[in-house]
């Protein structure tokens, strides 16, 4: 393998790798703004310029492929002077409204300014200002903060497949905007806020809700569709504030769709049922379990399991229902029209899949059949659901729900036992490629919700069951 030396450290690289990535391998951090590993290289911020021996001028590390025997200095006097002047240059027009800006705390411009810039400004001139047009429901634009890295333009054209962001005017009066000021069309608009190195493009959903440094982060997997994009849930005090994608080159690369990004909102839905209910009236766990047992035991039931449950939960339901509700049939529900994995195709050219539940492939692996119609002789329906599976229209039959339901969804249910959604439990889900991924618990179950395992435990061990078992033994 060819070798080069970066800041005195020898490093091996494969042909074609750029200096920025090679430097990162040995822990040398080269500051940058416009470079993004998922986008083409334009080398336009000039922040990553480094000194290479035998080269007359500084070279941008992002656009220079590493060469055998290259000797690179990223913190030489010349490179440092360049970083300092680029920072000064970028901050000439930056409003420095960090106290107001949602990006502060996770802002590349802020970080690099602290590390490489000067702590004072020489400019006394007025800063340029723009009037910002609305950019649709996802993104809030603030052009004053922009540093023209063009990451958003490249993201739209190269990843999202829509050329919607453009740079108009030139030089100092460059403005990044959508064509004709139209709102954003892409379903991946949330990524604009992620890749923006400043606070120019921020999420409307997250606007002023919390500061970035107050959020606690949990690495988990999105449950919006069968792709299972890797993401991070950011929460504080038990309520989720936003989800952002994590890098996984085999599944979602660096991106995430808006549907998955804002999927967390149903967790905090005010109409979500978080207390056990009997016929629409809140009650206690023991009463609800007692009612469930009194009206369900000994009967033949159809058990519908949402494909938004984890593999562990599905297996548990399979095993427990065989012993506790013998003679009942299990079928899975998920997205209407996508009942088997062969129906599950790509919805667009990037990430979205047709199955809008995360674990269709896992359910199929466990041998659970899709729900078509009620099994003959069924006297009741027991629905286990993680919150996303679509409920089939069921009439004229007693319905029992375990899982995440809103008040309108649980209309006419005999008993509802609140259980946990994807952010409130650990478990495994299988994506469309057959990859098993772990869901991590980010927040405590809302209200009185319990895990499905706990519910089975209550069901099995509640007092009457214990009594029955005792008499059986005697």
């Amino acid at each position, binding site marked *: 393998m060819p070798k080069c030396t970066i800041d005195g450290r020898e490093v091996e690289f494969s042909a074609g790798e750029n200096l920025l990535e090679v430097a990162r391998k040995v822990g040398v951090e080269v500051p940058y703004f416009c470079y993004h590993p998922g986008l083409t290289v334009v080398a336009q911020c000039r922040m990553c310029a480094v000194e290479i021996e035998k080269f007359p001028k500084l070279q941008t590390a992002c656009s220079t492929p590493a060469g055998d025997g290259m000797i690179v200095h990223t913190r030489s006097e010349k490179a440092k002077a360049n970083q300092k002047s680029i920072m000064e240059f970028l901050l000439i027009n930056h409003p420095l*409204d*960090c*106290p*107001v800006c949602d990006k*502060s705390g996770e802002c590349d411009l802020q970080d690099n300014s602290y590390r490489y810039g000067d702590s004072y400004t020489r400019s006394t001139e007025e800063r340029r200002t723009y009037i910002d047009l609305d950019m649709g429901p996802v993104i809030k634009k603030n052009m004053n903060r922009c540093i023209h890295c063009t990451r958003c333009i490249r993201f739209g054209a190269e990843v999202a497949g829509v050329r919607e962001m453009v740079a108009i005017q030139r030089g100092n009066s460059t403005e990044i905007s959508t064509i004709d000021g139209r709102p954003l069309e892409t379903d991946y608009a949330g990524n604009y806020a992620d890749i923006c190195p400043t606070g120019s493009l921020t999420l409307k959903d997250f*606007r*002023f*809700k*919390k*500061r970035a*440094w*107050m959020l606690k982060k949990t690495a988990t997997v999105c449950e919006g569709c069968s792709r299972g994009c890797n993401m991070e849930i950011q929460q504080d005090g038990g309520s989720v504030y936003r989800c952002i994608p994590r890098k996984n080159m085999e599944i979602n690369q660096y991106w995430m769709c808006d549907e998955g990004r804002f999927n967390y909102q149903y967790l905090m839905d005010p109409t979500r049922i978080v207390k056990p209910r009997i016929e629409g009236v809140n009650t206690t766990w023991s009463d609800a379990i007692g009612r469930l047992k009194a009206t369900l035991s000994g009967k033949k039931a159809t058990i519908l399991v949402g494909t938004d449950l984890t593999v562990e939960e599905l297996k548990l339901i399979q095993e427990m229902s065989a012993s506790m509700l013998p003679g009942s049939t299990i079928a899975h529900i998920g997205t209407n029209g996508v009942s088997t994995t062969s129906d599950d195709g790509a919805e667009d050219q990037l990430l979205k899949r047709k199955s809008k539940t995360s674990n269709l492939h896992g359910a199929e692996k466990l041998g659970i059949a899709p729900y078509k119609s009620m099994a003959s002789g069924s006297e009741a329906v027991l629905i286990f659901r993680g919150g996303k599976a679509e409920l089939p229209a069921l009439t004229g039959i007693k319905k029992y729900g375990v899982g995440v339901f809103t008040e309108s969804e649980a209309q006419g249910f005999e008993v509802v036992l609140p259980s946990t959604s994807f952010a409130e439990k650990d478990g495994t889900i299988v994506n469309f490629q057959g990859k098993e991924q772990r869901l991590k618990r980010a927040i405590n179950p809302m209200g009185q919700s319990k895990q499905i395992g706990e519910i089975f435990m209550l069901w099995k061990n509640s007092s009457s069951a214990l009594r029955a078992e005792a008499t059986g033994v005697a």
Partner: protein
Amino acid sequence: MLVKRDLKPLAHIYLIEIIKGLAITMKNMLFARNVTIQYPEERRNYSERFRGMHYIKATNGVENCTACMLCPTVCPAECIHIEAGERPDKEKYPVKFEIDVLRCCFCGMCEEACPKDAIKLSTIYEMSQSKRTVFSKDYLLEQRGHK
């Protein structure tokens, strides 16, 4: 470690030392100036830098605070609670700004962290309440006892 002191025979009765000590006590009692003051009638002058009750500074009737959340971040007692919002004349302003003064330790770090010179500690030190009170934004905006 226990050290055995080699005292002289006269020192063993301590009497001389007791008389010396009493002399100092008597001197202070009879001739020194009083340290205490008659509080509600008499008041002490405190330094301008005294850290007392908080207030939010306003400029032209608009609060300086932009709800940047640096004061709740730096607050060691976690007594500041802010909720941010937007209104036409101000991009970001505190919809709620509450201080639980009973939790506050008057360290003044909020004042130090504030980039907008909004939260300040006044010289007011009389804060006794008949019940536990969380001071709201309206109360804090009234500029009493400011420096």
